[in-house]
Structures are given as structure tokens and as C-alpha cells.
């Protein structure tokens, strides 16, 4: 069992690339940014293909999005928008340079500094941000199986030129779990801002830098989802510790996360930092970002997760823990608020979401938006408990059906015949059967209170949980009394 708990000897820094999915077009051309599910190489034009003679033209909405994110992360926004070329050769690069930003040689990123507060084991930790920058996404490479055994590589340029925000953290994360919590918080913030929909495939990707004490820094690339981040980092810690234990040194290198085999593989050794020969992108003109422009955007900031959390505590009178869990993702928080719109008892909703709902989602390995449960369905289910149609216990069996099938609770109760049995007649029949089948228990029950519970339990079991527990208790006691009287 690997101990990957917070360990200050483990230093993790993350480089997250977030697509600005709310934009209509790519960063430097008019191609539609809605490329998911479309045939490959159809959302392309001379500019994003890097056809000779083409020139980039900046998408103005990108700057607004970047400023929103910088404000939310409390980063310092720079007064000039400057783009630089990052020069390197790779098959996913149509121009063999990426138009990006740089923080030296006269360049500036869109914002520097900032932080994201997270809760780890009931402590608050501030994850420090080094910088935020705007850049274009390269094309997508597709392989048959793992990158090192695939007989070919296919290139799909639909993604080339999509606007990305790169957010780089200090190496201040000390465990894979912290990394995951940070990423979830960041995603929630971006979703609440409305700039990046983390639910879309490939919308948030991450490279990680990890070093253990005594070893060099290893970069892990190609991590495509948050689940993979925790796995990749955990694997890497194990790998590095195993090297140490065999007296081997961890060298500086770049490794590729193989999502199929769940290992990191070495791609190339970083003898030195790769030289990207950064220099200004001269086909674009520097743009000034005024304080007025920033203030205008600040006034339109949507509610962020932390503010939402506080509001949940005040408005719905929820405890801190509940509020924290519910605002962990925008989808979950939205779901909760939709429920509360049609049902007055917020705490009841919260309980159901935090316990059974989350547990089932976790077990089925889906997020709430991937399931089929609707706020209306959950509220209906709770109402069925309220009016006695089903018991709380039965509801726990209805809930997974809501998640998987998307049917209404009424339909499910009907189909599976889960209606609470509350007719005296029926329960008496069941009670009689139980008494008949359990003569020894009956003898005990006449003198021992505990045995009565046992018999009632058997009645519940016989009724498959549907019998009204209170009424069953009353009837069972009556019958026993009758026997005693006899």
C-alpha cells in the first residue's frame, strides 16, 4: 500500500492547459471552435493549418476570458498583451512554432501571481500561481494503442489554434491527492466563470512536474483527465522511490503518461532545458489593457465557488462541510440549487446528495452530469418518503435507478413494486407468517424485548422492506400480547 499522503519531500508543480470553450472561434482565425465530434480536419483554414502566407488575427474575446480568470485567481494583470513565438519542431505543430506568451526577453504573460485556496484534511492551503498565459492549442495526435508501439500517428488539425489558457503553479503541492483537489477547485472556478467547460473531453489537460528529495525534476506529459493526474503522480512516486531504494538516481527527464498501461514511459532525456528561441510574434500588434477594461470585466464577474459556498451557508443554513462538498463542482452546486427551487428543505436535499448520491456516482465512476438523475427526480423521491409512499430504506434502492435509468421515482416504485405496505390487513398476514415460521423466537419474545425486534425484523425482511416499520412494530406487539393472553 503506497503512502502518498502529504509529504513535504514530495514537490509537485502543475502546468494546466484549459481550453476557453465558451469562445465561438479559434484564437487566431475564424474557424469554429466547436470541433468535438466533427470529422477530422474539417475545422481548418489556411491560418490554423499554417499554410504559407497566412497570418494570425487575434480573437478579442480571449482577452476578456483571460482577465476574468486572472481576477478570480487574484493574479496581477499586465498592462500589455504581447505574444511571442515558441519555436520547436513537432508533428502536432503546423507552423513548427507555437504562438504563446513569454515572461522574459521583453515579453509578459497576461497575468502573474495569484493563488487558489483549497481544503486539504480540514486545513486551508493556498496553492500559489506563477503565471497565466494565452496560447494556441496544437493539433491532436492519435495513435493505435500506446505511443511507443503504434505503427502510425494520425494528425487532426481541428484542435490546432484553439485558445488555451496556461496556468502554472509553484511546486507547492505535496501529494497526488492535493493535486487532484487543486485541479477540481480550479475546474470549478473556471466553470463558474463560464469560460471553460471542464466536462468536455480534452478541455483541461495537465502536465506535472514532480521531484522527490534527492532526485531531479521529472516532467510528466499527456495527462488528459483529473483521475489520471492522481494515478500518474502516484505511479511516479512509487517508481522514483523504487529507484532510490535500489540506490539509483532519478535523472531530469520528460516522461509520457500511458493511459492504457497506466505507467509513465521515458520519451527523452532533458540534458538541458530545450531552447525555444523565444522572440516576439511580429505578425501581431501589441495591445494595451486598460484599467477601465479590467474594471468593466470585474463588475460582471459571476459568483465563484468560495462565494457560493458562503452563500449556501447563509441562505440555506447549511453547515460548512455540506457547503464545501456541494460547491466542489459547478454541476453539483447547480443540481442542488435546482432541487432547492422546488423543495423547501435544503438540508434534506443536501444529505441525500452528499451521502447516497455521491456514493453511487463514485461507485459507478461517473460525475453527476454523466448520470441521468434530474433535480425533479430526486425531489419527487424525497416527497414520496415524506408522504409515506415509500420508506427511507426503499428510497436508497430507488436512488441508483434514478441515476442509471433516468426514470422518475414513481415509475421505478411501480415497476419494482416498492410501495410501502401500510394496510393493517396485509401486515397482519405477514406477522402471522413470521410467528408461524419462528416458534423459538416467539417463545423468547414473550419474555425478552430484544426478540420482538428480531421478529419485526423478520417481518420487514419478508415484506422486502416495504412494510411500514411503525405499524409493523405495533401489530407484532399486539399479536404477541394476544398469544400471551391465550
Amino acid at each position, binding site marked *: 500500500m503506497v503512502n502518498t499522503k502529504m509529504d513535504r519531500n514530495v514537490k509537485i508543480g502543475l502546468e494546466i492547459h484549459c481550453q476557453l470553450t465558451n469562445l465561438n472561434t479559434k484564437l487566431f482565425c475564424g474557424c469554429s471552435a466547436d470541433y468535438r465530434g466533427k470529422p477530422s480536419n474539417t475545422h481548418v483554414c*489556411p491560418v490554423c*493549418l*499554417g*499554410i*504559407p*502566407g*497566412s*497570418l*494570425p*488575427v*487575434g480573437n478579442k474575446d480571449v482577452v476578456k476570458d483571460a482577465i476574468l480568470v486572472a481576477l478570480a485567481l487574484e493574479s496581477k494583470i499586465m498592462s500589455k498583451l504581447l505574444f511571442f*513565438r515558441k*519555436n520547436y*519542431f513537432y*508533428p502536432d505543430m*503546423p*507552423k*513548427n*512554432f507555437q504562438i504563446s506568451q513569454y515572461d522574459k*526577453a*521583453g515579453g509578459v504573460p497576461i497575468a502573474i501571481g495569484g493563488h487558489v485556496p483549497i481544503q486539504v484534511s480540514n486545513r486551508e492551503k493556498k496553492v500559489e500561481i506563477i503565471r497565466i498565459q494565452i496560447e494556441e492549442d496544437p493539433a491532436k495526435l492519435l495513435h493505435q494503442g500506446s505511443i511507443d508501439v503504434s505503427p502510425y*500517428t494520425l*494528425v487532426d488539425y481541428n484542435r490546432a489554434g484553439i485558445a488555451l489558457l496556461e496556468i502554472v503553479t509553484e511546486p507547492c503541492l505535496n501529494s497526488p491527492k492535493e493535486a487532484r483537489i487543486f485541479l477540481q477547485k480550479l475546474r470549478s472556478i473556471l466553470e463558474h466563470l463560464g469560460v471553460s467547460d471542464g466536462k468536455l473531453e480534452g478541455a483541461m489537460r495537465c502536465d506535472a512536474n514532480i521531484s522527490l528529495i534527492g532526485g531531479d525534476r521529472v516532467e510528466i506529459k499527456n495527462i488528459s483527465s483529473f483521475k489520471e493526474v492522481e494515478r500518474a503522480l502516484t505511479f511516479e512516486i512509487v517508481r522514483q522511490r523504487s529507484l532510490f531504494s535500489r540506490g539509483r538516481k532519478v535523472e531530469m527527464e520528460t516522461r509520457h503518461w500511458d493511459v492504457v498501461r497506466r505507467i509513465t514511459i521515458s520519451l527523452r532525456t532533458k540534458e538541458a*532545458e530545450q*531552447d525555444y*528561441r*523565444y*522572440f516576439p510574434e*511580429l*505578425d*501581431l*500588434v501589441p495591445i494595451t489593457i486598460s484599467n477601465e477594461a479590467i474594471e468593466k470585466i470585474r463588475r460582471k464577474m459571476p459568483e465563484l465557488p468560495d462565494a457560493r459556498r458562503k452563500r449556501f451557508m447563509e441562505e440555506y443554513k447549511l453547515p460548512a462541510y455540506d457547503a464545501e462538498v456541494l460547491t466542489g463542482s459547478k454541476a453539483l452546486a447547480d443540481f442542488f440549487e435546482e432541487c432547492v427551487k422546488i423543495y423547501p428543505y435544503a438540508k434534506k436535499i443536501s444529505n441525500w446528495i452528499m451521502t447516497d448520491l455521491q456514493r453511487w456516482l463514485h461507485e459507478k465512476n461517473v460525475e453527476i452530469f454523466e448520470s441521468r438523475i434530474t433535480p425533479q427526480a430526486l425531489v419527487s423521491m424525497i416527497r414520496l418518503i415524506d408522504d409515506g409512499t415509500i420508506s427511507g430504506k426503499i428510497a436508497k434502492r430507488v436512488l441508483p435507478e434514478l441515476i442509471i435509468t433516468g426514470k422518475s421515482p414513481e415509475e421505478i416504485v411501480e415497476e419494482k413494486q416498492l410501495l410501502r405496505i401500510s394496510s393493517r390487513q396485509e401486515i397482519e398476514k405477514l406477522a402471522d407468517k413470521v410467528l408461524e415460521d419462528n416458534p423459538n423466537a416467539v417463545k423468547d419474545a414473550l419474555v425478552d424485548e430484544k426478540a420482538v425486534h428480531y421478529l419485526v425484523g423478520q417481518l420487514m425482511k419478508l415484506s422486502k422492506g416495504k412494510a411500514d416499520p411503525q405499524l409493523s412494530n405495533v401489530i407484532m406487539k399486539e399479536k404477541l400480547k394476544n398469544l400471551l393472553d391465550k
Partner: protein
Amino acid sequence: MEEPYSLSAKEIVEKIRGRELKAEDCVLSIFNRIEEVEERVHAYVTLSKELALQKAREIDAKVKNGDVLGRLPGVCIALKDNLCTEGLLTSCSSRILDGFIPPYNATVVDRLLKEDAIIIGKTNMDEFAMGSSTETSYFGATRNPWDSSRVPGGSSGGSAAAVSAEEAVLALGSDTGGSVRCPASFCSIVGLKPTYGLVSRYGLIAYANSLEQIGPLSRNVYDCALLLNVLASYDPKDSTSIRVPSQDYTQFLVDDVSDLKIGIPKEFFGEGIDERVSKVTWESIYTMEKFGVTWEELSLPTLRYTLATYYLIAMSEASSNLARYDGMRYGYSIDDDSKDWSEVYLKNRRIGFGSEVKRRIILGTYALSTGYYDEYYLKALKVRTLIRDDFNKAFKKFDVLLGPTMPIPPFKIGEKIADPLSLYLTDLLTVPANLIGSPAISVPCGFVDDLPVGMQIIAPALREDLLFKVAHIHEQNHGFKDYAPKL
């Protein structure tokens, strides 16, 4: 009547509008001329006769119907082969663009077509515009129509030779360090480099993007202004394109220049300039005096740094602009599936690029690399600012600056190509205008041993009007539009 191929653009437009001439006849005449002389000149990489005839017939139909015509109806124009033409091979005179057929037109091409101009073909150039003699072309050198053993200048040598030899009425070239003005000077025609940002670069295959502009080549000053009218306007597809109110540059061909003050930088006639070239240029200056212009000498000390500054900047930008040529999506490729992608890229570029291009890419890469960036590229940018300041000071006192376009007359093919530095030195007088973004024009001003000499006029940014004024006066005086090479 003169052969249509000898007519100026102005005359063709008038005659077509006046129904005295048919566009189809213009095209046929030009192609006859091409057939006659092209073998000796080698100005063209690609000729598109059928498309030209098709377009000509459309124009003739328009005339017949009384439809509104554009500003260049029936004018046969040649395009330097680094301008993207949809459906027509665009090679930059390089092997690495083998088979490259652009899926779009450069903005300037669309504008020409809109004005009913007729594109007749793509002209030879130095590979990727890197050169001053059109000798680095993968397709072999173009010859100077005035002396076929000599270079036509470069890198727009094919365009200039075509216009000079009357194989085209007008042509477009591109000017990064003198590539329109140099061949204009060597071929005894007019060549203009507009203010940086005045003409859209969308569709111009980049060599050095902070330095280059597309420019007109013509046999007289009026035609040059006419063509600039069509080229100069804001293009949203080019972020470096300037928004200026459109104007008619032909209105600046006036006879009154008595208010103009000309500055003559001493360094334009100093070390490295052939004495005979100096002499011919001075003669033109003295003659202009009688039109009322005044001139005065000045010194621009930063001129000694312009060549080094230019080459550092140009090569650095080129190393990045030419990175995209890897054979994967277009152009030459060895197409070997058994090799790793990086090996294929290396081979494609090794085989596809000529040696001058490789030289500049290597030097540019070096200048941008860690440890050298500050020393070379950044320093060059700083010096560029100093050069700008120098010229701005001069322009406070003078309306335009003047001197020879090239330090030497056209040299023999093969004479300098083995010594790259000696070729770089020939750019001495032309690179300053690119570094500061100012417009500059070259006009013929005489001969040295029967070899053409050009005079260069430089104006402040967006003051093409001043260039046309001075060029016009000089042309009236000089009569160079009646020159023609014997072919």
C-alpha cells in the same frame, strides 16, 4: 500602332475603356512577346495563358455590355512567385515548395482581380526572397534584359526583368531589404517599396515579417501610382495592416516641386559606392535643381550599422518563418514511412532548401538561441531604434532623402554568388528603408557602360506622395520611360 505589349498601363486602361483595344489582344500580344524573348530572359516560373485569355474574354464581354470596369482592365500583370495564387503553383523558386498549389489568393491578388487586371504568370526570384541577384533560384538565374550575361538584381528579379523586357505591363514584387528597388535599378524600371503596413501581407509567403512589403514594378511613374492605388488599403486579415483613408496617388504627379527640400546623406555616396554610379546619380540631382528643389548634404552616422542590423533581424525572423516547411502537409518530401518523423523532416529540409536559405536559417537560429539572443537579436532591435531616430531627425529638416539605389551597376552572373558577404554588401543603400518602415522608390537615372543605374528616394512613413512628386519631376526631365533594352 505600337504593339500592345509595349503600351503603358495608363494607355491600356484608356484604350480598353475607349473600346480601341481588346483585352484578349493585349494577352495574345504579351504572350507572343514572351515566346519571343523568354528563353533569353527566363523571367517566369509559371505562365498561365489559358486563364489569362479566359479573364480577358470576360473583360471584353463586360466592355461590350457596358458594365462598370475596374481600375486596371486588361492590364497584364506578373506576380512574384512568393505571392499565393489559388490553384496556381506557388514555388518561392524553391524545391521545398514542389507542387504547392495554394488554396487561397493573397489579398493583393484578389484586389487585382477585382480591378479586372489579368494575371499572366508567376515570376522567378531568389529562393524565399533571400538574395539580391535572383541567382539562388532553384530554377536557375533570370538574366538582365539589358545584358544577358548579368544579373537582373533580386530578389524580385523575374518580375523586374519581365516588366523591363515588356513581358508584362506591370508586376508585383516583394521588398524585404531592397528586393523590389534593386532589380528595378538594375533593369532600368520603376520600383516602389510602400510604407510598412500600407499593403496587406496576407498571402505573401514570409521571409522576414517585420521588414517586408509587396511593391509595384512598372516602366513609368504613373503606372506605379496606379498600381499602388489598388494595393494600398487596410486588410483585417493582416494585423500589421494600417488603416489609412484611401487616396489617388496619381494626383501627386505634379510639375511644381519648388517647395521640396531634399537631403543627400553623405554615406550614400561614400565608401563602397562605385564612383561612376555616384557621378550618374549626382547628374540627376543637379538637373532637378532647375525645377526648384533645394538640396543639402547631411550625415547619418548610424548607416554604418544598417547592414548588420538588417541581416541579424531578417535571418532571425526567417529561421522561424521557414520552420513550417517540413514536407508533411505540402511541398517536397522523401515520403519514407520507415523513418522517424524527425529524420524525415531533416531530410526534406536538407534536400528541399538551397544553400543560401540554409545559411540564413542557421545564422538566424544561432542569433535567437539562449546565450546569444541578447547579444545579437535584441541588440539589433535596439540599434534599429537608433537608426529610426537618426532618420526621424533628418526628416524634420528634409522632405525626402536621396541617393543611388545600388552601390554598383549590375554585375555578372556568377560573379558574387560564391561570396555571400559580397552579395550582402550590395544591400547597403536599400536596407535602411526596410528597417525604419519608410517608403522608398527607385527610378532609372542613367547608365554606366550601358548598364542601368537607379536613383533612390526615401520619404517619411505614409508620405508616398512625396516620392511620386520627386519621381515625376525626375522622369519628366530624364525621359527614362522611353528606354527599352534591345532583345
